[in-house]
């Protein structure tokens, strides 16, 4: 059985490599990119980039064209966003909590001073 945490672990393992993160950054900018285009800026072979793409594909971070011979890669946003937005969410949780704290303080002060 695959739990949500397992999926996160797979995503993180795929993200643990700087070349793979750079590939994702390139895809985020350019949309669809072929393996040859992806290999160009990196000091690694097309074969090495291919291996990285396989890891990213298994982790569900990218999809690749099936029919076209060049099989361009394309970023899949959902799993990556779960990871990347965690810190933003953490801040949002606190902001929401402080909104409720402010309301609660208003409530109890209004009750304490009915003339206000």
């Amino acid at each position, binding site marked *: 059985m695959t739990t949500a945490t397992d999926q996160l672990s797979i995503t993180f393992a795929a993200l643990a490599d700087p070349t793979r993160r750079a590939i994702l950054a390139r895809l985020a900018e350019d949309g669809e990119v072929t393996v040859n285009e992806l290999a160009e800026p990196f000091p690694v072979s097309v074969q090495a980039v291919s291996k990285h793409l396989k890891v990213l594909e298994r982790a569900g971070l990218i999809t690749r064209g099936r029919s076209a011979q060049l099989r361009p890669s394309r970023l899949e946003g959902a799993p990556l966003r779960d990871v990347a937005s965690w810190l933003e969410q953490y801040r949002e949780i606190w902001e929401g909590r*402080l909104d409720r704290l402010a309301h609660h*303080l208003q409530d109890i002060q209004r009750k304490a001073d009915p003339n206000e």
Partner: protein
Amino acid sequence: MSEQFEMAEHTIVIERELDAPRELVWKVWTDPDEVARWWGPEHFTTPREKIEFDLRPGGVCRMTMVGPDGVEYPNDGHFGIVEPPARLSFGEEKTEHPMIESGETTVELFDLGEGRTKLVITARLICANELLEMARMGWGSQLDKLEVLLAS
């Protein structure tokens, strides 16, 4: 998982000015009866019977948040600094996130006069560098833009 992440400390600071005197803010933050009424987070509850505070340095700070589906998220930590009505810290807030270990949160209250208080929360998280790098690059919002782009 074969690859290991390098963990680093990350600090999040959140500030808020409140229309309430400092002593009252302190009470609402440290009295379990009050905490149960606002802690949340959104769509969650933190029932009174699931909060246990021993308000002194090293004392237990336990609270269980209950999700909308009834799933419980227990936090089992300790108080660090307890200096009424100005400073409070508590730690070892557990997370489900494999890239984040634990952290300590410090709450500071500054008397602004005229019944107003400035609240500063400093949350220290121990998280993987990879996560911080992505957060710094604004991956979350960048992905939203990409999705719009790909959908068009």
